[in-house]
């Protein structure tokens, strides 16, 4: 009798365990998909974008790319336009870092200044830089190989001009910036090829309002390594009616127009749209604790006669959509 009762108890226990297991499996099957297939509706990432002393038209392609990335990846962008100067950019960066933003995209005016700010911050959101690195404090850097761009432009000059010509390099960026590195690489290459190289410090490029034509009289060729400065320099040359060959880095509708009007001889162009997209993409990934890496953009040397080639059109003039 007792054995029978024990058998009955065992049966009840087995049924209980069976039901418990089934319940656990139901729970697991309901919770597993949440882990295996994470919801696409990820939390919105707040990204602050500091493009430096940017001009709306100059960086419109970059901004389009950033907006597209933000839409694709679920980010909210806050564009900040600091006043002129690296110090102001540093202050603004510090403020953003302390405001609890999820990530920062920055085009450093002065990489050293930015690095100083980052050094002082204990814990900070991921920082992605455009064009310039900040002594390794950035999570990723998106841009062209500055040295490669400088050398390619120098080689274009070498192809078009006789050895011994004097090339005036307009220095626009502080030490460590992409523009400064491009200039340095170009300078080395030109010297190597037997050109006479001169440099002058003009952070915004030549300005017809402040500069004199005499500044460039001794030069046979001008080179500018920053898009904003390039556009302003070309406009200045147009104002002066000076037909001095001008080579530069970067592209915009204004630069394309000036090139079409022969005020710029050739440019090293890359996709600002891609740069903007990749920068925000990396910032969002970094904010979501996903692995990110640097992205090196390809560039092309574009002359007036190549402007309407299908692939160059796509590079210089982004379509909407």
């Amino acid at each position, binding site marked *: 009798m007792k054995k029978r009762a024990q058998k009955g108890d065992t049966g009840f226990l087995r049924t209980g365990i069976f039901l418990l297991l089934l319940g656990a499996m139901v729970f697991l099957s309901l919770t*597993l998909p949440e882990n295996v297939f994470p919801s696409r509706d990820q939390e919105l990432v707040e990204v602050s974008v500091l493009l430096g002393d940017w001009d709306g038209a100059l960086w419109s392609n970059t901004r389009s790319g950033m907006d597209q990335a933000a839409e694709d990846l679920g980010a909210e962008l806050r564009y900040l336009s600091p006043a002129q100067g690296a110090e102001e950019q540093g202050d603004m960066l510090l403020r953003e870092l302390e405001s609890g933003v999820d990530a920062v995209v920055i085009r450093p005016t002065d990489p050293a200044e930015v690095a100083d700010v980052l050094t002082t911050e204990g814990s900070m959101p991921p920082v992605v830089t455009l064009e310039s690195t900040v002594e390794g404090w950035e999570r990723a850097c998106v841009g062209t190989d500055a040295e490669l761009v400088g050398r390619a432009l120098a080689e274009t000059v070498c192809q078009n001009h006789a050895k011994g010509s004097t090339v005036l390099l307009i220095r626009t960026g502080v030490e460590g910036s992409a523009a400064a590195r491009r200039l340095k690489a170009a300078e080395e290459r030109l010297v190597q090829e037997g050109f006479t190289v001169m440099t002058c410090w003009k952070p915004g490029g030549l300005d017809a309002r402040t500069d004199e034509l005499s500044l460039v009289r001794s030069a046979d060729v001008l080179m500018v390594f920053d898009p904003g400065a390039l556009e302003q320099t070309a406009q200045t040359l147009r104002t002066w009616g000076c037909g001095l060959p001008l080579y530069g880095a970067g592209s915009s509708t204004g630069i394309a127009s000036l090139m079409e009007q022969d005020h710029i001889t050739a440019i090293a162009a890359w996709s600002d749209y891609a740069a903007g997209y990749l920068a925000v993409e990396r910032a969002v990934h970094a904010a979501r604790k996903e692995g990110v890496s640097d992205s090196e953009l390809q560039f092309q040397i574009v002359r007036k006669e190549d402007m*309407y080639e299908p692939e160059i059109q796509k590079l210089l003039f982004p379509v909407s*959509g």
Partner: protein
Amino acid sequence: MSQWSHRLRGVNRKMGIQMIISLSFTAVAVAGMFFIGMSLFLRFSAAAGELTADSGQRVLAQVNLNLDSYLRRMMRLSDTVYYGLIKNTDLEGEELNTGLDLLYEENLDRVVSIAVFDTSGDLVAGAPLNTLKEGCTPAAQSWFTAAQERIENFHFSVPHVQNLFEAQEASYHWVVSLSRQVELTKDGTTTDGVLLVDMSFDGIEQICKDVSLANGGYVYLIDSSGEIIYHPRQQLIYAGLSQENNRVAATYSDGAISEVFQDVTRQVTVKTVGYTGWKLVAVSPNGWETSGSQLLFFGISLLLFSAFLLAFVNSRLSAHISEPVRALEQAVKQLEAGAEEVSFDVGGSYEVKHLGHSIESMVSTMRHLMDDIIQQEDAKRRSELDVLQSQINPHFLYNTLDSVIWMTENGRTDEAVVMVSALARFFRISLSRGSSIIPLSDELEHARNYLTIQNMRYKNKFTSTIRQEPGTEGLYVLKLIVQPILENAIYYGVASADGDGEIDVHAFRKGKDLYIDVRDNGLGMPQEMVDQLLDEHRPAVTTKGSGIGLRNVHRRIQLTFGLDYGLEITSELDEGTTVRIHLPALDEGAAAPYRGEVTS
């Protein structure tokens, strides 16, 4: 296979009814749900595929309608310019610009420029601008050459940046060029020319842009060679950050097709746009990699939950069925253990209740049958007693009557009278109105009569004494228990012995027991014989000296009062034998049941 079925049977045997019902019901239900679920899942996935294709085709039809309408409008504009303006204008004295300006103004929202070129690519007229860029060579551009090569057709270019007019501000428009061969009239002479309507890319973009398809699908537009005209991620593709399967899509015929691109299976629907040869391509990722798997997980969850629910319900249901059965089993066990009052009212279903009632009824019947058997056994026992009792009389009667005859023949009538009188009293007591329990005094009287008869038969060869101790008066004994012992004492004791025989009957009480000793001084017996005398298993021998009389008395006493009572024999060779009758000391009250039993 047979091994499995054997194992299954083994497991089945070990499981209770509750477990069998729970498991089998749950297993069958879960299997059924699984098959139904899988069927529905497959059916659903097929239907979803069809729905996606159907949705893609419907969306494409609508987009195609809009695009067709847009292109027709552009072609109508081109026709208006050509047939309404160019054909009616002699360029020698008239100019086209005013008319072009008006038409441009009318179509400002969709058109970037309208221009007419002569056969060498020189601008004849244009709106809104009519100055070509320096160095611009329209004749070298693809829209111009296409119009000149196939003069009867409209030609639609792929999107490109317009490179024609000198603008005050730097402006670069993405346009789709509609070009055609036209005949220009100049001074009455017709020459070939090209009419160009540059459609704004935005116009096409607006048509295709806001189309949404299932699973994040989209629509893109390509020309016959696969060159992208519109794509929602066009700039990403141009920047090399995204890819599209446009070159392959250009080879597809109209209709739905499934393709794998970048490891993603997609449902692609293609529709060719009239006049242009362009293809609208609707792309809907199947989404089965995730949504299908999610659906599968959901299905599994549902299945498991149902199994859980079923198992629970089945467990309760089977418990409802099996618990009364188990209770019934317990009741039967109690019955087996000898319980008198066992309830078979265990509840449960009708069948189980019925089974309980049946068992109860069966138990009741069994009890009645057992009572009957007991009664029959009693009757049988009584019958046996009667037979044993009846075995005494014939011998004695025969011998006594033989003695009476012998006395009468020898003239010893007084003695014969005494013997017959003794015999009469003997039988009176023997009868005792049918009662098997009689007063001790009657039994001793009966013994006395018997001894009287036998003494006469054996010519006073022995003497006898009968003593009844005080305290034994009023006690009752089984009838005719002393006489067979006396018979043995006479026959095998004193009759065969030399010298005077003595027989002593002594009745006395010890506590609740009554003893009647019958002692003789006869030959006695060896112990082996003594041991055999009362042995029930000894073969029945009816020859003289078999002791059947003693055994009968012994059995009668034990049958009546139990195994604690009966005869005890002690004997010594040449010394004699004592037979002790051990009985319960029954007074009248105690004897009543025995007496009633017999009379009943």
